[in-house]
């Protein structure tokens, strides 16, 4: 059983929901990223997503785009992101994922990248610009090296959910109608129906990630989903505090537990 499945199973037994947090590697610097990942975990994260900075992140909102731009400006390389992951793996046993784009994977080399993920202890990949239809060149390698594909589902997915979640063993990442990360306005009311609909079509745990800014949001969404994903709010806090780990730990703890 992979770390992701094990985590969701354990949380379910305890009657808890998964707290999933995100940061961009190298924002503000790769050295600080290690302390910041530790802060996310100490603040109560069950799973951590590490964003691999990319020049053209078309599925991200302005906050995470800006983090990517800052990280690239600080000179972060893919190699350094792998080193960061390896270092984090020595400090924690919780699931770690990469959020990344297809081009990073292709230019590095699909098999080489996935093999390296497995080696440094990355449990799964979230690749927003690889939809179900484009998985065939990637999935065999993920299976070979035991790295999970975390499928993304959107409100427009409708009856595609069984297809999208087929051959996946981690969890389902539900995004809003916005489709890109960050806060949306009108969508809130339809969330329950949307999540129920997704859950009716898959046996995988369902996590939602969009525009969660405070504990109220977390509580509300935990009542419908198996996990909540917080990205932009954390990235904003990292920017605000200039990457201070102690501040981030307090912020995350408040966010997840009130």
């Amino acid at each position, binding site marked *: 059983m992979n770390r992701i499945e094990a985590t969701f199973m354990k949380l379910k037994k305890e009657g808890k929901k998964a707290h999933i947090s995100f940061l961009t590697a190298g924002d503000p610097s790769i050295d600080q990223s290690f302390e910041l990942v530790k802060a996310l975990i100490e603040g109560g994260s069950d799973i951590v997503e590490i964003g691999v900075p990319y*020049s053209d992140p078309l599925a991200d909102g302005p906050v995470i785009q800006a983090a990517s731009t800052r990280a690239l400006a600080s000179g972060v390389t893919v190699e350094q992101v792998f080193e960061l992951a390896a270092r984090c793996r020595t400090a924690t046993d919780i699931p770690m994922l990469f959020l990344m784009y297809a*081009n990073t994977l292709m230019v590095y080399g699909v098999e080489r990248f996935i093999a390296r993920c497995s080696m440094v202890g990355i449990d799964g990949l979230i690749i927003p*610009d690889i939809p179900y239809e484009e998985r065939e060149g990637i999935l065999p390698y993920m299976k070979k090296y035991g790295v999970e594909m975390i499928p993304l589902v959107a409100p427009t997915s409708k009856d595609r959910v069984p297809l999208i979640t087929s051959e996946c063993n981690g969890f389902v990442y539900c995004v809003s*109608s916005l489709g890109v990360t960050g806060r949306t306005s009108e969508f809130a009311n339809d969330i329950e129906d949307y999540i129920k609909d997704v859950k009716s079509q898959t046996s995988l745990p369902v996590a939602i990630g969009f525009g969660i800014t405070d504990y109220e949001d977390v509580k509300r969404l935990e009542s419908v989903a198996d996990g909540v994903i917080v990205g932009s709010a954390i990235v904003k806090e990292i920017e605000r505090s200039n990457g201070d780990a102690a501040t981030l730990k307090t912020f995350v703890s408040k966010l997840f537990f009130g």
Partner: protein
Amino acid sequence: MNKNFGRFGGQYVPEALMYPLKELEAAFDKYSKDEDFIKEYRYYLKEYVGRETPLYLAQRLTETLKGAKIYLKREDLNHTGAHKINNVLGQILLAKRMGKKKVIAETGAGQHGVATATGAALFGMECTVFMGEEDVQRQQLNVFRMELLGAKVVTVTSGTSTLKDATNEAIREWVRTVEDTFYVIGSVVGPHPYPTMVRDFQRVIGDETRRQILEKEGRLPDKIIACVGGGSNAMGIFYPFVEDLKVDLIGIEAAGLGVESGKHAVVLNKAAGGTLGVLHGMKTMLLTDENGNIIPAHSISAGLDYPGVGPEHAYLQDVKRATYEMITDQEALDGFEMLSKIEGIIPALESSHAIAYAMKIAPTMKPEEIIVINLSGRGDKDTHTVMDYFRDGKTGLEKLNK
């Protein structure tokens, strides 16, 4: 409908766009075979755009270069001044049939933005154009033209604030508004079905050329030359000749200040060596660094200033059906000047790359051989860019544009 061209193409987009792309594909498949749709599209091409465009024998250019006979396909005579309108009208008519009320577009220098704003004005649709901040500043005239036509121009400040970032932003906007909005892509790029659809709306260039050259010469040309940024004018003129293996298809990429300078837009020609990757929803050849980040392209001509290329061009190169050559900023300016002075036609800087390449090869060919150059646009839009260069005795090339 096949979504790939060999190992290129595909649909590398967020899940939220998969249903909309399938809808678009179904609509395009249906209407591209629908007689009423085709009739309406042809009506507007003729009555509004002014097609067909002439295939003009450039007699003085031919005499000057002392080699092959040179014809110009005069896409510069289209309404709005370039081939872009052929595709825009096709997509906007399709948007209407699909019941969409709004259109969005990305633009670099503003030519596709102006064409889209024009089509939107013609059919009373709401239009938003995404344009990088850097381009907004250097192309004020086109920004004003779009506004005059009733479009809203959104300044994009993310990434490098140029065309590639404007395209990212247009895709993000489409994800947000997909229910009532149609995304009009300006070149043979993006996720399937766009490369196929844009090619099919541009193939009118090649279809006319074929008929015209057979009328004038009783045979097909030996070489067809067209500039390639994303590659829509080239794909449009190449496509009807792809099966005619005796016709050389030559795409011209912008070598900017020279490939060795690193400031260029060459992704197919092996001298620069692009990388296989994914950008704007397609798998194709790209300019990237070793970490997979996109390297900004450079060309004096904004229309060729793109770090990728349409997937079908990458395929045509792969199967050796087309070749891709390079022309520098300097050579393009020489072509620009030559055509202005000896034919009385001011070409777009984009098209000047194709002219410059013809200037290189025509003298090596026999008088009975025939070259067709796709003169994809007129150069009025570029005159302010090159004015200082010509007035200062052809100096200051590196200061132009960027």
